[in-house]
């Protein structure tokens, strides 16, 4: 009985009104103000994206036509023209870069995640890959210029491909390592219990299981490479012509790309070139986003498993 009485008086000197959340108290007011600031800042951060996308759709969409997608770039003071050779050039250089970086990245990742995960070599490789992730793209271009352009004697699509491959490699490698690590241990142990060698385990069990994750990394790397400009400026340069000339494919020549076309045309005083730059930006963003979304779709499927 006396305990109840004591308890009922225990809260007497507490003003219950103080415990209510009220904007009049400075602490809650500050909290509300900060919440408003954070939400406002998030909203403001979305403005650039909305602006970029609407400009691309309005100014790029206006000019987008079959001619723009298939013709070669126009000369100054002429009308019409397009960027068909640049689309082809971009796809080709990204293809070369993928052919160089994907096998190398996946096999190195197989070593890191499966064959020698705790060795000194694999921590060194991981460190090297992280260094490559932070390499400024213009330096990949400088490197490819010094290593390929000077060696082969001219600007070319393969030189651009090498520069892009340097940029793709770390993404492919690090995501592939992560994907291989995600393969359930019980699958690996079951295979080893049946007497597989490590390389059979890799080919038959681990790589097929990890493939969606690996492809996600490849797609993201391709998306990044397709939008890169700086490494192509002095490796592939630019060209107003198709790579196929008189029925011959001339690989070792300056090659057009969408990104460099946008850069070159953005500085020109001619409205025709400027509108083409916007249309090319739209096409480039669509290509980049397609690869991005494809990659994310693949990883979403993997999570569902």
């Amino acid at each position, binding site marked *: 009985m006396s305990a109840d009485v004591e308890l009922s008086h225990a809260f007497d000197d507490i003003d219950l009104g103080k415990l209510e959340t009220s904007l009049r108290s400075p602490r*809650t007011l500050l909290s509300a103000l900060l*919440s408003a600031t*954070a939400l406002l*800042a*998030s909203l*403001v*951060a979305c403005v650039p*994206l909305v*602006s*970029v996308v609407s*400009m*691309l759709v309005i*100014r790029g969409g206006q000019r987008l036509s079959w001619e723009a997608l298939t013709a070669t770039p126009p000369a100054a003071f002429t009308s019409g023209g397009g960027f068909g050779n640049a689309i082809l050039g971009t796809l080709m250089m990204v293809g070369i870069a993928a052919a160089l970086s994907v096998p190398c990245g996946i*096999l*190195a990742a197989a*070593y890191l995640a499966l*064959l*020698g995960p705790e060795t000194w*070599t694999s921590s*060194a*490789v991981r460190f*090297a*890959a992280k*260094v*490559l992730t*932070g*390499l*400024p793209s*213009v*330096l*990949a*271009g*400088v*490197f490819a*210029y*010094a*290593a390929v352009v000077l060696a082969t004697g001219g600007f070319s699509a393969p030189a651009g491909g090498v520069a892009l491959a*340097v940029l793709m*490699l770390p993404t492919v*490698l690090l995501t592939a390592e992560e994907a291989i690590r995600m393969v359930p241990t019980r699958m690996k142990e079951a295979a080893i*219990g049946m*007497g597989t*060698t*490590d*390389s*059979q385990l*890799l080919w038959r069990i681990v790589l097929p299981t990890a493939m969606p994750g690996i492809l996600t990394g490849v797609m993201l790397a391709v*998306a990044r490479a397709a*939008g890169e*400009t*700086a490494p192509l400026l002095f490796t592939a340069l630019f060209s107003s012509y198709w790579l196929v000339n008189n029925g011959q494919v001339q690989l070792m020549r300056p090659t057009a790309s969408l*990104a460099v076309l*946008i*850069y070159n045309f*953005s500085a020109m005083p001619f409205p025709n070139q400027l509108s083409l*730059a916007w249309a090319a*930006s739209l096409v*480039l*963003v669509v290509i980049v*986003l397609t690869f991005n979304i494809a990659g994310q779709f693949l990883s979403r499927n993997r999570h569902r498993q």
Partner: protein
Amino acid sequence: MGTPTTIPFAVAPGAISRPPTASERAIDRIARMVTLAFAWSVIGLVTYIVLKIAWTARPAVARFGSDLLTATTWDTNRDLFGLLPAIWGTLYSSIIGVAVGTFFGLAIAIVLSQDFLPRSLETVLKNFIELLAAIPSVVYGLWGIFVVIPALRPLAAWCFDHLGWIPVFGTPFRGPGLLPASLVLAIMVLPTVSALSREALVAVPNKLKEAAYGLGATRWEAILGVLMPTAMTGIFGSIMLGFGRALGETMALAMLVGNSNTLSVSLFSPATTLAALLALNFPEAKGAEAQVLMYAALVLLTITLAVNVIGTAVVTRASIKMRGIR
């Protein structure tokens, strides 16, 4: 006891599992060698890139030494080269870009990690920020020329007219310059900062937040007093990685910074950066200029490598520390 144990299913021994044959072992050894070779090739590539750039820059380093880092003129006709304006422009634009980008990036990281929004809106915002990271920098450059610069014109004119006595607003705004370049940099840094900071904030164990609420902290007292200090290493690492990205960013800057070899604290003044200098002058550079540009590439490589190594080390350390709290 004497009866042999029979296998309860009708498979001959060796049909499902058997030890690898000699040829399989040989193949395994070769495959192991091949993957090891590819792993080493990554290390080799990084070493080769660093050595190749350093080696090509060697004549300029021998000829100009460290004078190049402090000289300010750039006159190819008289063989006068100075990298100070470019180094200054690189650091100045990156610091402003990272400061602005960090403010917005952290706000987004907090909004996305602390249940401010319903799940569906959270996903929308997250996808928006991811899209921001996907847009190529050359497109940002084009957008900057046609949207950001015209939008800044009236504001910059007012600042110059009324606040022109402050050195930061000390020159008239003529279009391309540090301010538009830094703002576009901020947009490009933002996704890096927000994604990595969000990860750091999510990694803070819930019990810390719950304890703070239990002691009567308001939401922001919990965020600023408990969550942010705990996640600070990770947040700092994300800022460093964003800084590394800003330092090496090329196209948006080459298109927006004005490419003028001037040394100025004014936000409206045109400037140049190491990456933009390389992108613009490298294709036509000959002789001494080409060597000096390689020197510039080496300087850029050194700065970004240092920043990135610090950033990566900090992020790694942060995740190890977090494991201790759990």
